[in-house]
């Protein structure tokens, strides 16, 4: 990667983007398109790209680039666009704080501790992995217990193997993908243990990552104890009952030297929290408007820091919008005010954005609580659309056009996903 550092860090930018993952890159490009002339993107890692750099598998870009790319391939494509737009990229730099007057304080190897004033700020810090502590597995604290995403970075970027015999807790896509990854690197994967009665990841990952390599998947089973003094020596696992309580008398021991924990991501909302922006208790990310603006003027947010995405394509799309909003704000142009609040209804866990306007077309991202197939999506009593299927692990994207809402005059619009009456086959 070329050296993108400006010789001297200017004191003022139109837009400062915090985070250089897919969300940050798209927001930076969007900011230029929205009218910003001077844009800075800051990332704490040595290079931009975020989590994509360690996701070496295929499955990125089918919607955005109309081509199935790997994570690093997608990052490289997007970084080229960033470079074309003359955006300043500062890596190896940690954003310590953003205040309400949009002063951004940065700690960087190159410039030490400095602060930059921004016309608008975009928060794009991504997500963190939930750790062993988040679910309180009892036992000793030996080395060899780590999150699956950290192991992914060790293996795919740094070139280290986490251990020789590995057990994986959690069957989300990261856990499944790491199971295959480790087998291909010559590591023995003794099993994947999943608390729920179904795998959390996509079926294609269960097939390609576990079945193909005869890795056992133990459903309705969890890790109840970790053993070992210096290093993990074994873990005790137990089946769970319907209330998800372990049945200890049926527990058994599994020999392993490493336990990977893959139990989900949570938005990295630390900066948002200290800034005092309103947070959604369900997503735990900021509440955002149709232009991805938070409850603080001129502070925008996008990507996994707002809600956890499974497809990077939607991250790019949503973040472009956030960037455009920030660019417009910094140039003194405010967009139309939102007049409709979206309210998650039946079988809808969350909706982003939280508000929309009846004047423009919007993409709304939903998470459902339960799988249904086939089903119907309803917006209040003004619009409905059939959906082939919904599953909790996959975000549902809905285009909401102004004409859908012509006959809507309230302020709060309920969003429901309900079973389809006449179950028809396609």
């Amino acid at each position: 990667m070329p050296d993108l550092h400006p010789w001297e860090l200017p004191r003022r930018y139109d837009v400062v983007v915090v985070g250089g993952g897919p969300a940050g890159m798209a927001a930076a490009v969007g900011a230029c398109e929205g009218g910003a002339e001077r844009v800075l993107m800051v990332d704490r890692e040595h290079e931009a790209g975020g989590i994509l750099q360690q996701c070496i598998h295929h499955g990125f870009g089918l919607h955005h680039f109309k081509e199935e790319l790997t994570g690093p391939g997608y990052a490289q494509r997007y970084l080229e666009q960033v470079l074309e737009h003359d955006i300043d990229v500062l890596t190896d730099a940690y954003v310590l704080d953003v205040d309400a007057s949009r002063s951004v304080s940065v700690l960087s190897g190159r410039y030490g501790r400095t602060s930059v004033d921004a016309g608008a700020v975009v928060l794009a810090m991504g997500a963190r992995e939930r750790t062993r502590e988040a679910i309180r597995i009892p036992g000793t604290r030996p080395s060899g217990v780590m999150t699956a995403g950290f192991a992914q970075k060790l293996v795919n970027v740094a070139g280290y193997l986490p251990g020789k015999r590995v057990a994986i807790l959690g069957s989300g896509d990261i856990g499944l993908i790491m199971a295959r990854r480790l087998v291909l690197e010559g590591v023995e994967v003794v099993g994947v243990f999943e608390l729920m009665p179904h795998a959390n990841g996509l079926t294609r990952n269960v097939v390609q990552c576990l079945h193909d390599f005869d890795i056992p998947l133990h459903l309705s089973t969890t890790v109840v104890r970790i053993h070992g003094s210096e290093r993990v020596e074994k873990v005790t696992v137990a089946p769970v009952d319907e209330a998800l309580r372990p049945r200890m008398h049926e527990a058994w021991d599994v020999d392993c030297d490493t336990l990977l924990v893959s139990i989900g991501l949570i938005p990295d909302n630390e900066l948002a929290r200290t800034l005092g922006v309103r947070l959604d208790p369900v997503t735990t990310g900021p509440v955002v408007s149709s232009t991805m603006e938070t409850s603080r003027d001129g502070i925008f947010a996008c990507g996994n820091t707002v809600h956890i995405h499974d497809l990077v394509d939607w991250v790019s799309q949503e973040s472009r919008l956030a960037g455009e909003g920030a660019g417009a704000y910094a140039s003194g142009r405010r967009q139309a005010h939102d007049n409709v609040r979206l309210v998650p209804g039946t079988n809808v866990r969350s909706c982003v954005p939280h508000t929309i306007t009846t004047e423009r077309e919007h993409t709304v991202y939903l998470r459902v609580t339960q799988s249904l197939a086939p089903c119907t999506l309803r917006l209040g009593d003004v619009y409905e659309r059939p959906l082939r299927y919904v599953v909790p692990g996959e975000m549902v994207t809905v285009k909401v056009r102004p004409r859908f809402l012509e006959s809507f005059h309230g302020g709060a619009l309920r969003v429901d996903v309900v079973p389809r009456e006449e179950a028809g086959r396609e």
Partner: protein
Amino acid sequence: MSETSHYLCINCPLGCRLEVDADGDEVVEVRGNACKRGVEFARQEHSDPRRMVTTTVAIRGAPVARLPVATAEALPKDRVVDLCRALHQLRLEAPVAIGDVVLADALGTGVDVVATRSLERA
């Protein structure tokens, strides 16, 4: 004599459970597919299962230790592990450009392995 096998379709996230009646390699009937692509998948999976492979190769002189690589096309499923073993023997030197072939005609399958990102010299 036709026999029944079971596959999970991996073409889309619905993941249909396919029941496949086949006479040797010849697929006679597919059930359980919610769309036509399931039939195509069943045929391929039954007679010649293939997978795209992504892994990494050791690289020197770059800012990171591993270069991510992928097969340019799908490889017969039973060669996947062998391919990764062969790639473990490789030692590359930066710079590498995205799309560069790092191993041509891998294991004599006619499939190339290519870099999925560029890495400059550190």
